[in-house]
């Protein structure tokens, strides 16, 4: 899957002039999973308040995923709702099953019947958006574009296409993105608690009432730390899982080039690739399919659990 992109990378990194620069696996892998740099953004935007708002690869990917999710979901839902009798068919069967699954097993048991319709849209958007962001990284869309560019289009390094090709495709592998998503969960927890109990009462719910005042000295800091640890855990879990799988696949595929270099023969690298790298990479990719789904589910479920904890205070 990513073999082609590494090939392209190799060709790109090896100008005809300097023949033996050597294959730097670490650099190549990092290049493939990290965001494109702010020095070469897709669209250059001015900084405001010291923040560079330029559209980098991951911003582009967020928009792409958001557009895909919005168009597909809205298209099928609208078509479904236009019918006189609500009979789902085709893709809508799956979408409806997902929506009902999220509503009935993720949202409902946590936030309770009263708040289902308030929080189901947020949780559903979390799930679909994160799932698609995760999954799009498994599709070698930009790697195919890179191949085409390399052998067919020959665009200049400054062209938009060339800038789109570089950088990781999985936006959720970037902890800035997952931190932003976790921040939305963090705010949602406060909003949920405030809506259910009132703003002041929500903050009083942080610790149980009627205990020895001395206990609060320990308890309140712990609860406040916990408040921040939860979104932090969400952030790191998702980003690390998404990065990890990609790095593993890329490292295994790097064997092809490392062995080629080691023995000075392409056949050595290709042999190792056929026997070891590709089967292993396929296996890890299959595993990634599960990870993609599970991580989207875990983020969604934990968000629902945290929101539910703010609504139903158990002490």
């Amino acid at each position: 899957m990513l073999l082609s992109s590494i090939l392209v990378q190799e060709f790109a990194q090896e100008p005809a002039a300097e023949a033996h620069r050597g294959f730097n696996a670490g650099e190549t892998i990092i290049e493939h999973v990290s965001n494109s740099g702010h020095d070469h953004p897709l669209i250059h935007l001015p900084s405001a308040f010291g923040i560079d708002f330029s559209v980098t690869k991951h911003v582009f990917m967020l928009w792409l995923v958001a557009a895909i999710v919005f168009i597909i979901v809205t298209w099928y839902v609208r078509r479904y709702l236009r019918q006189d009798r609500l009979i789902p068919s085709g893709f809508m069967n799956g979408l409806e099953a997902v929506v009902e699954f999220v509503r009935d097993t993720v949202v409902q048991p946590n936030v309770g019947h009263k708040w289902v319709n308030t929080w189901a849209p947020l949780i559903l958007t979390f799930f679909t958006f994160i799932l698609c962001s995760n999954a799009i990284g498994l599709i070698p869309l930009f790697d195919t574009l890179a191949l085409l560019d390399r052998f067919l289009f020959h665009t200049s390094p400054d062209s938009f296409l060339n800038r789109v090709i570089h950088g990781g495709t999985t936006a959720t592998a970037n902890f800035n993105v997952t931190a932003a998503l976790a921040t939305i969960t963090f705010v949602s927890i406060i909003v949920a608690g405030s809506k259910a109990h009132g703003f002041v009462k929500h903050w009083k719910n942080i610790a149980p009432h009627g205990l020895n005042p001395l206990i609060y000295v320990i308890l309140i800091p712990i609860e406040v730390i916990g408040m921040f640890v939860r979104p932090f855990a969400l952030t790191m879990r998702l980003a690390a899982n998404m990065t990890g799988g990609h790095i593993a696949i890329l490292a295994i595929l790097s064997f092809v080039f490392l062995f080629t270099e080691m023995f000075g023969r392409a056949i050595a690298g290709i042999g190792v690739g056929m026997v070891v790298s590709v089967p292993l990479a396929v296996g890890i990719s299959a595993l990634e399919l599960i990870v993609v789904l599970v991580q989207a589910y875990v983020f969604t479920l934990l968000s629902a659990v945290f929101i539910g904890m703010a609504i139903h205070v158990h002490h």
Partner: protein
Amino acid sequence: MNNPLVQPDPGLFIWTIVTFLVLLALLSKFAWRPLLKALESRQAAIKKSLDDAQLARQELERLHQESAKIIRQARLDGESIIAQSRSDAERLRGELAQKAKEEADGIIRRAQQQIQLETRLALQQIRHEVVDLSVMIASKLLERNVSKADDQRLIDETLKQIETSRQ
């Protein structure tokens, strides 16, 4: 902090929040809320139709039992009506036969009485006739003393006269 994997990127952070909130707003408005509402109403509709089916089944069962009861009742009624009409017919036939017999007896009795009466009248008439004839014949005989042949002729004449007078 040279590793791009752990590079803080506030721009990306803010873009993510903006993108996600826009997507959330659009999807909520155009997809999730209408869909959730539709699913709920469909769920309600399914529940209602199941309840209705249950009610209809109970109603059907009740009607079934009722109709069975009605049929049973009708059969009993029919049997009792048949028995009743059979006994009625029996009774009526007996009555009719009795009546016919009485009538026939009456007719016979009346006929016998009539016959006796007629007979008596006839005998009386005969008697009167005989008396008249005898008187007539005797007077004729007394009027004329004639020979035996004459007597005979006289008798014949008289008889002839009687006969003609009768006619």
